[in-house]
C-alpha cells in the first residue's frame, strides 16, 4: 500500500484558503455557540437550585433531555425535523430566508447542548458559594435577582473557571459535528482537501495542528484569566480543578 507524500499541497491555493476558512468557521461557530450557552446554561443552573419546584423541574428536565441525546441526533432534529413541524412560513424562514441556515442551526444546537453542561457546572458553583453571602445580600435589602447578579453568580463564575474553560475547549471540538449538515468548518475542510487531492495524511495533520493551536491558545488565555480573577482567601477552587 503506497502513499505519495506531498506536504507542499497544504501551502497551495485553494487548499490553504480552505484551511484558513475552515479555521475561521470553527472559531466563529464556537464563539456564537458559547455566547448562547453561557447565559442559557447559567439560567438553567440557577433554576435547578431554585426554591420553586417548577423551576427545578424545568431545569432538571432540560439537562436530562440535552444530556441523554447524542449531539449529532440533536443536530438532525434541529436541522431536519424542526423546520418541518413548524408552520410553513416559520419553516421556510429557517430553511431559506435566514442567513447561513446551516451555520446558524449548528450554532444554536451546539449552544443549547453546551448550555446543559454549563448548567451542571454553574449549579455546582452556586452551591460552592454557599448560602452565607446570598443571605447577607438579601438581608441588606437586595432582591433575589440582584443577589444573583451582583453577589452569587460573579463568585460562582470565578470558582468554576477551570471546568468552564474545559467546557469552552469542548465546544471547539464539538463544533466539528456541524459538518454533518454541510458547514465547512475545519474538519470538513480537511476532509474536502483529502477528497480533492487524496493527500489525507497531510490534510488531517494540518487540521490536528490547528485544533491543537486553538487548545493551546485558549489554555494560555485561561491561565492569565485565572490569575487575574483569583479570589483571595477562598479554598473555592478545590474540587473544581480536574
Amino acid at each position: 500500500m503506497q502513499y505519495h507524500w506531498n506536504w507542499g499541497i497544504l501551502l497551495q491555493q485553494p487548499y490553504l484558503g480552505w484551511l484558513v476558512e475552515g479555521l475561521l468557521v470553527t472559531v466563529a461557530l464556537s464563539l456564537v455557540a458559547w455566547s448562547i450557552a453561557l447565559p442559557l446554561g447559567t439560567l438553567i443552573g440557577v433554576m435547578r437550585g431554585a426554591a420553586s419546584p417548577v423551576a427545578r423541574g424545568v431545569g432538571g428536565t432540560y439537562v436530562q433531555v440535552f444530556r441523554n441525546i447524542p449531539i449529532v441526533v440533536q443536530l438532525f432534529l434541529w436541522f431536519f425535523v424542526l423546520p418541518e413541524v413548524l408552520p410553513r412560513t416559520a419553516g421556510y424562514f429557517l430553511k431559506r430566508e435566514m442567513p447561513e441556515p446551516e451555520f446558524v442551526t449548528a450554532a444554536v444546537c451546539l449552544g443549547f447542548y453546551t448550555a446543559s453542561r454549563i448548567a451542571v457546572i454553574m449549579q455546582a458553583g452556586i452551591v460552592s458559594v454557599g448560602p452565607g453571602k446570598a443571605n447577607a445580600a438579601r438581608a441588606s435589602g437586595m432582591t433575589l435577582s440582584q443577589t444573583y447578579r451582583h453577589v452569587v453568580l460573579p463568585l460562582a463564575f470565578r470558582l468554576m473557571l477551570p471546568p468552564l474553560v474545559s467546557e469552552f475547549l469542548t465546544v471547539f471540538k464539538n463544533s466539528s459535528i456541524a459538518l454533518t449538515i454541510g458547514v465547512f468548518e475545519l474538519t470538513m475542510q480537511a476532509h474536502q482537501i483529502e477528497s480533492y487531492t487524496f493527500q489525507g495524511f497531510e490534510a488531517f495533520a494540518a487540521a490536528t495542528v490547528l485544533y491543537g493551536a486553538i487548545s493551546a491558545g485558549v489554555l494560555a488565555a485561561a491561565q492569565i484569566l485565572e490569575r487575574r480573577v483569583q479570589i483571595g482567601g477562598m479554598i473555592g477552587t478545590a474540587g473544581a480543578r480536574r
Partner: protein
Amino acid sequence: MSSQGMDWGIIPQNLPWLWEGMQLTLALTALANLGGMLIGTALAVARLGRFRPLALAAAVYVNVFRSVPIVLAVFWFYFMVPVLLGRPIGAFWSVLIAFVFFEAAYFSEIIRAGIQGVRSGQVAAARATGLTGWQVLRHVVLPQAVRAMTPVLMTRAIVIFQDTSLAVVVGLTDFLTAANVVADRDGRPIEMYAFVAIVYFVLSSLAELGARWSRKGQRA
C-alpha cells in the same frame, strides 16, 4: 414536501434493519469501552512511572487526542489505518480502532486521577510485605483506583454509547445511520429522527439510573 400525515408505521416496518444498526452501536460501545480502558490504564501507568521517555510519550498522546474532535480522529483512522497496515481493513474495525485510541486518552486521565487518589500508605505497606512494584500495582493500587473512579467510568461509558452515533460521518451502519438511510429513502426524517432521539434518551437514562443504583449499592 407538504406535511402530509406522518407515517409512524415505517418504524415497525424497518425494525429489523434498525435493530441491526443498534447491534453495531452496542458492539462498538462495549468494545470501545473495553479497549479504551485497557489502553487508558496502560497510558496512566506509563505517565506515573519512572521511565521518563515513556511518561513523556504517554503525556503527548493524551494531550493530542484530548485536543482534537472525535470526528477528526474517526476520519484519520478510517482512511489511514489500512494505508499504514499495508492491507485492507473493514470500516467497523477502522472506526472501532479510532474510538479505542481516542477514548483511551480520556480513560487514562480518569485512571490516573484514581491512582493518585490511592493513599501512599497503602503502597508503602504493600511494598513492606514484599510485593514487587508490579504486584502492588495489580493487586493494590489499580483495583482501588478503579473502584474509586467507578462513577466517572460509568459516565464515560454512557458518553461513549452516545459518541458511537458519529459513525454516521463515515457511513458505517450504526443505529443512527440505519435510521438515516430510511429517512432519506422514504422521505420521513421527522418520524425516524424522533424515534432515534427517544431510543437514545431512554437507553441513556436507564444506564444512568443503573449507574446511580449500583453506586448506592457500593456505598452500603
